[in-house]
């Protein structure tokens, strides 16, 4: 879209716009980090904006006395269980819809697509009652099972693209070499869709790690808190220990940021595809 050279005024304008955009985009993340690293004696927003001294005091307090390590462990357990569960179920389902023609195939696909639009707010009350009658409140496993269900539709939809991209000829070659369907699945299809499994796994991890509503409804015993719920304990009724809160927020954010950078490309195309194709 650029034609020839730009006037210096236009270049300056673009530079200013980019600078403004970056300032707006990065400020919250920067402010979170600078507040977390500021010493305990600094208590106001302007003091922590450019801390004169950097210390890990807030982090050691959060992980030590405040017991955040426990919540990290709970969240990690739930996230890993969710990733394993939803990756396995999604892979089987994705192979079924991308490799076989059968009756109601389109119905299944449309159902998977539509079910993604169901708001969590509509599910939280019946899920709460279901879990309470099964004695699964305050259970890490119960929460993991719910998260498998929440992340499954998108995971099926995303993996379907990856399995469909494997040429049928590759499979046929395996059959000609005498492989059974199971052998073909294990030795041919699985390695080829491994990148897709990683991407959907990361997506499920982020879903489970970030989820707040269901976790807050299900967990009322502190020892089972996830990180998303555990953060709330730093918010006091009248005053909040913002240094500790921001340190804990940083700890919650870092794994998500790292994983997010891996999958951003797939996430965008997955979301758009999911919304467009029927």
């Amino acid at each position, binding site marked *: 879209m650029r034609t020839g050279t730009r006037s210096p005024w236009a270049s300056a304008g*673009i530079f200013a716009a980019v600078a403004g955009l970056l300032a707006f985009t990065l400020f919250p993340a920067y402010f979170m980090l600078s507040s977390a690293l500021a010493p305990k004696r600094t208590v*106001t*927003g302007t003091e922590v904006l450019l801390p004169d001294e950097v210390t890990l005091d807030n982090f050691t307090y959060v992980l030590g006395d405040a017991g955040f390590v426990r919540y990290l462990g709970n969240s990690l357990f739930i996230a890993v269980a969710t990733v394993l569960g939803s990756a396995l179920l999604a892979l089987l389902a994705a192979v*079924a819809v991308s490799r076989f023609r059968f009756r109601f195939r389109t119905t299944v696909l449309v159902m998977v697509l539509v079910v993604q639009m169901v*708001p969590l707010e509509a599910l939280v*009350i019946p899920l*709460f009652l279901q879990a309470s009658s099964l004695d699964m409140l305050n259970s890490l496993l119960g929460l993991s099972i719910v998260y498998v*269900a929440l992340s499954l539709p998108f995971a099926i939809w995303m993996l379907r693209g990856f399995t469909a991209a494997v040429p049928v000829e590759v499979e046929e070659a395996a059959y000609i070499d005498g492989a059974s369907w199971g052998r073909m699945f294990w030795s041919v299809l699985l390695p080829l869709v491994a990148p897709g499994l990683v991407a959907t796994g990361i997506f499920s991890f982020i879903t489970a790690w970030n989820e707040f509503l269901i976790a807050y409804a299900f967990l009322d015993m502190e020892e089972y808190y996830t990180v998303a719920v555990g953060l709330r304990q730093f918010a006091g009724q009248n005053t909040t220990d913002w240094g500790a809160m921001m340190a804990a927020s940083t700890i919650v954010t870092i794994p998500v940021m790292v994983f997010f950078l891996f999958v951003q490309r797939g996430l965008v195309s997955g979301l758009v595809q999911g919304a*467009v194709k029927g």
Partner: protein
Amino acid sequence: MTAGRPAPAAPPPPPNRRRRMSLRARRRALPWALLAPGLLVIGGLLLYPLGRVLWLSVQDYGLRELFQGGTNFVGAANYTDLLSDSYLWRTALPNTVLFAVVAVGATVVFGTLVALLLAALRPLARTIVISCIMVAWAMPAVSGTYVWVWIFDVDRGIVRQGLEAVGALGPEGFNWFADRLAFYAIVTLNIVHHGFPFVAVTVLAGLLTVPKELYEAAVIDGAGAWQRFWNVTVPTLRPVFAVVTILSTIWDFKVFAQVFLMPGGDGANPAMLNFGVWSYQQGIVQTAYGTGAAIAVLLTVMLLAVTLVYLRALFREEEIR
């Protein structure tokens, strides 16, 4: 699809026939066997609860029903109670719908502006800026919300101090979280900050596919920059705008943590509830599960209506396939 499988070698004819049939039957059953676990989970934990929330919404269901079992069918009473309450029309509905309209509009407009800016950058600069933008998207809603609350903290927040320093705010300060408009302005800022990267990246991908010839032809016809954007870019990218608008609408209708975690947003201040938090407040907190379910159903119906309107507009024009 994968029918190119060799038949088993030379078994005697009659068993062979039967065996082939069973193989075919097995092949027909295989996709369902693969789908079964996933469908069971989706059915049991997404579809069944969806049915149950409908069933709960026509009952007066509280702790007694939960512990003693039984149903207490009341017909549409929960709905008529809710819909005849001015609280729904004056507070919860504007907090949900009006907020979503403003937030979606702001997200799409800002995201599009960012996409146009990105399209004007050189590839290296573009990659760097996109990576920085992704930081905003990757921030979890929970920690992101707390950062905004800290930025706007009433006593020691940086916004308060800044406004006080330039004399726009007196020493008595101002409680943004107690004022409905200011409260939702902060929620909107949070949502736009978190949601614009998706719009920007998606619109940018669309922008890069618009054929250059279209712009060159427009230039020859004497079109200015604004006309080129309005008459070439916008019509070409209509499907892309439709997608980002639908998705943003679906997301913004059901914000929960971004409201709930704000001071007073958890139900302590009734003026700040949207449908999602209101449903939670009635259902989980007050144990009026029937009322909470009815609010949740209303939210779902609104969401469904919005989605259907968009989809109809889209498919009528056959722009997306």
